[in-house]
C-alpha cells in the first residue's frame, strides 16, 4: 500500500502552482455503500479530467498536458458515522486529534492551550465534512475545473430513494503558490520543511501505529489562516524579524540579539545566491538552536525544536504543503489574505501538540513578543480547520479507502 498522489514528498518533486480543497457532506440517511458509489463516480471523473475529458463534452479531449493534475481523497470523522461502514475509524480521527468547533456566536479557540482563534465572524467551521478532495495542478483552470466538475457529477447522481445526491459539495478553498518563496507577511516561508530523507517516515502511517487498514496512509491537517496585514505592517521591521526568527530581506535565521542588532550567521546567504538555493539550504534553511530567549520565542524556533528522529511523533515534525490565498472581504483593507496551511503526518498529534505544548507554539498565536505586541497576539485568525485521513492506494479498489465504505 502506498500514499496517494498529491503529496509531493519525493526528492526534487515540487507541488503544482494551484490548489483547491473541496469538502463533501453526506446527505442525511445515506449509507456507506451509497456514498461509495458516488465517490467511485467522482474518482472516475477525476481520472477523466487528468486525460482532458469533461462530463458535458462527450468525445472531446481538452488540452491537459500542462495541468499535471493530482487528486487526493480524504475521509473525515463523519465518514465513519455512516451506516454500513465496514472498517474501523482510524485512530487519528478521534476527538483528541481534531480541532475544536467555532463558537456558535463566532470566534473561539482552535484548541485549548493554543493562541489560535477562529475569526470573530466564523460561526461554523466549514472544513469538517465527511470527505475532502485536494486538487493540485500547474494551471488554475485545472483546479477550478475540479470544483465545477465535482458539482456536476454530484448533481447528476441523485439517488431515487433519497431524492437527493448522496454527497453535496459544501464549500471549497482555493490557493496558489508563490515563486518568491515568501508569504503575505513578506518573509520567506517553508524553508525549514523536512529533509527529503525524513519525509516518508513522518508522513506515512507505520505498521502498528494505527488501524491495520490505515497503514501506508496519512493524515491531512488543514487550517485556513487569515493574516492581519494592517496590524503586521504597524510593527517595526525588528519586531517582525523577532516574531518570525529570520532576516526579512535575506531569510537568514536570526541566531542572537545583540542590543538592537539582530545577528545572523555572517556566512548566510552565500554571495550571489538566495536562501532557498544550494548551498544555503543545508546549513541555513533550518534555523540553528539558540540560547537567546528572545530568538527562542520566534515562530521558526517554536515550530521546530530540531528533535530526532523525525519518525517519532514526539519530534513534532510535519510535512508542510501550504498555499496562499487572497479573496475579497468586506471592511478594511478590502481583502483577506492568508495561508491555506496543509500538513501531512502519520498522526495529527504531531501538529496538535506543536500548537499547544509549552515552549512550542502553545499559548501563542504566531510567535515573538505577543505579551507586549497585540498585533502579534491576533496576527492569525482561523477560517476553517479540519483533519482528514487519506487512505493508502490499495490495488483493486475503486477509489482509495473504498473498502472502508463497504464498496
Amino acid at each position, binding site marked *: 500500500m502506498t500514499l496517494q498522489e498529491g503529496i509531493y514528498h519525493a526528492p526534487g518533486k515540487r507541488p503544482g502552482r494551484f490548489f483547491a480543497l473541496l469538502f463533501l457532506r453526506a446527505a442525511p440517511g445515506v449509507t456507506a455503500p451509497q456514498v461509495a458509489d458516488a465517490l467511485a463516480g467522482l474518482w472516475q471523473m477525476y481520472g477523466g479530467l487528468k486525460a482532458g475529458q469533461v462530463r458535458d463534452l462527450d468525445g472531446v479531449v481538452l488540452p491537459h498536458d500542462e495541468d499535471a493534475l493530482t487528486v487526493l481523497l480524504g475521509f473525515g470523522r463523519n465518514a465513519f458515522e455512516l451506516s454500513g461502514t465496514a472498517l474501523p475509524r482510524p*485512530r487519528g480521527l478521534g476527538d483528541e486529534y481534531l480541532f475544536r468547533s467555532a463558537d456558535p456566536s463566532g470566534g473561539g479557540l482552535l484548541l485549548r492551550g493554543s493562541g489560535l482563534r477562529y475569526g470573530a465572524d466564523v460561526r461554523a467551521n466549514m472544513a469538517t465534512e465527511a470527505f475532502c478532495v485536494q486538487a493540485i495542478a500547474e494551471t488554475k483552470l485545472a483546479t477550478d475545473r475540479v470544483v465545477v466538475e465535482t458539482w456536476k457529477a454530484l448533481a447528476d447522481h441523485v439517488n431515487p430513494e433519497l431524492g437527493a445526491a448522496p454527497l453535496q459539495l459544501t464549500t471549497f478553498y482555493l490557493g496558489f503558490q508563490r515563486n518568491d518563496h515568501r508569504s503575505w507577511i513578506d518573509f520567506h516561508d517553508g524553508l525549514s520543511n523536512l529533509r527529503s530523507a525524513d519525509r516518508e517516515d513522518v508522513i506515512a502511517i507505520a505498521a*502498528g501505529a494505527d488501524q491495520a487498514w490505515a497503514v501506508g496512509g496519512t493524515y491531512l491537517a488543514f487550517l485556513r489562516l487569515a493574516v492581519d496585514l494592517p496590524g503586521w505592517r504597524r510593527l517595526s521591521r525588528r519586531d517582525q524579524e523577532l516574531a518570525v526568527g529570520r532576516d526579512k530581506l535575506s531569510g537568514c535565521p536570526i541566531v542572537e540579539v545583540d542590543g538592537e542588532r539582530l545577528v545572523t550567521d555572517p556566512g548566510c546567504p552565500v554571495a550571489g545566491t538566495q536562501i532557498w538555493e544550494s548551498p544555503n539550504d543545508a546549513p541555513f534553511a533550518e534555523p540553528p*538552536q539558540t540560547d537567546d530567549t528572545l530568538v527562542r520565542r520566534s515562530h521558526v524556533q517554536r515550530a521546530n*525544536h530540531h528533535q*530526532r528522529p523525525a519518525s517519532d511523533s514526539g519530534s513534532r515534525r510535519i510535512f508542510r504543503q501550504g498555499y496562499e490565498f487572497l479573496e475579497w472581504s468586506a471592511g478594511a483593507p478590502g481583502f483577506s489574505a492568508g495561508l491555506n496551511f496543509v500538513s501531512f503526518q502519520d498522526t495529527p498529534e504531531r501538529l496538535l501538540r506543536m500548537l499547544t*505544548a509549552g515552549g512550542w507554539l502553545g499559548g501563542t498565536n504566531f510567535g515573538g513578543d505577543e505579551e507586549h505586541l497585540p498585533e502579534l497576539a491576533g496576527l492569525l485568525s482561523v477560517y476553517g480547520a479540519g483533519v482528514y485521513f487519506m487512505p493508502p492506494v490499495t490495488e483493486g479498489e475503486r477509489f482509495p479507502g473504498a473498502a472502508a465504505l463497504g464498496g
Partner: protein
Amino acid sequence: MPYGSPGHADELSEELIARWNDVIVTTAESLASFKTRFFELDPAKLRDPELSDAVKWPGDPAAPTFCVDEPTVRALCDWPEIGRRSVQLEYCECAVINARDAGGRLRPKRVEVTTELREYWSCIAMHDPDRVRAMAADVLGREPDWEELFGVADPHPLSPEQREIAFGHTVGGHGNNQRLIDAGVPAQPTGRLNIDHALFMTHPINGLDDFLYVVMFGSHPYGVRAGSQIRQATGDDIYTAKEVKHLSCNHADPTITLGAYDNAFAGRQTGFADPIGMYIRVPNLDVFFYGDDPIPPEWARFGRGRASMYQRLVFGPPDDHEAFLDDITVSVGASDQPLTGGYQLLRELEVGLRLLVGHTDPIAESEWELLEPAPAPIACDTDDACATVRELARRLEAEQSGRSALRTL
C-alpha cells in the same frame, strides 16, 4: 568535572560531590568500549561548547503504542505499581496518590512524576544517611523512618556498602548493578516508600548507565557508503547494523542516540552540561482546567532542581482542597477529558538532557565506521517486540475482569 548534584537540587559537601562524581566516572568507564573521541565526559575539556536542550522527548511510553491500542497503553501505564515497573521506560516515572473523598470513595488525588536517578540517591544513601533522609523529607513533606529508607532501625553503624544494599532492598532496587544483584537486591524495592510515592526512578533501564550508554553509542562517526560518497546513517541503519533494534521503539533512546550521532557526523563532540541529570520541561498548563478555569499554578509544583532543571513534578490539588485529580480536565484536541492518572500527564510532559556540543577535528577518512544500509525499516509491532506488552495487557484484562488476581511481576 566535578558535576554538581543533579538539578543543583542539593547543596552537597565536597566529599559527597566527589563520591557522586566517582559514580559517574565509574559508570562511564564500564562503558569504555563505546568511547570515541566524539564523546567527552569532562565538560572542561570540550572546545567552545554550546549548550543544547534539543535532546528531549515526550514522557509517555512509546513502545507499547505499537503493540496495543491507546486505551490499553494508558491502562497499562496507570496500572498501580506494575505500570511503573513495566512500561514507564522513558526516563520518567510516576505514581498516583489516592485519597478518600467525602463519600469515602478512593480517588486519585495527585500524580508524582520523577526523573531523578537511582544512582544519585543510592550514592547519598551510602555515604550520608542523614542527607538522604532530608532529601526524602523534602520530597514527602514528612521525615521518613529509617526503616522506610533502609529497612533497619539505624543505618549509621552499617558500612557504606551495607547501606547501599539496604537502601536498594528497601527503596531503590538493584538498577542492574551486578554487586547489588549478587547481594540479592531485587529489581524493584520491597518497601512501600518508593512505590506509594515517586521518590526517584527505580526501573533498571532508567538509569545513569543507560543514558550514558546511549549517548556514547551515538557518538560515533557512523556512515553508509553511497557510491563515492558517505552518507549519514539513519536510525534504522545504525540499530540494525549494531543489532540493537529495540532501541528504536521508544521515545528516549533514539532521540538521545541520534542527537549525539548528529553531532559526531558533523565532526563535533558531545558532553554533558553540569549537572548531569534528566530534566522535566515545563509544560503548557493552559491545557488543564478545574471547572471552567485554568488550574491554580500551585497545583503543578516543580521541584528537585533549579529552573530548567526540574526533576520532580507533583500535580494535583493539595490535601486541604476538596478537589481530586479527576476533577481536573485535560484538553486534548477537541476533547476535554478527566485526568484520571499519570499517563495523561506524561503525554503533556517533555523530558530531556542538557548536552554540551563542542568543536573537534573533522572526521578523518580512516575514522568512518561504515555500516551496511538497513534492508528494511525496523518494525516495532512484531510478535517478538510486543510479547511482553501483550502479555501484560492480557494480565491486566484478566485482573480487571476478575478472572485472575495476579499481583506481582
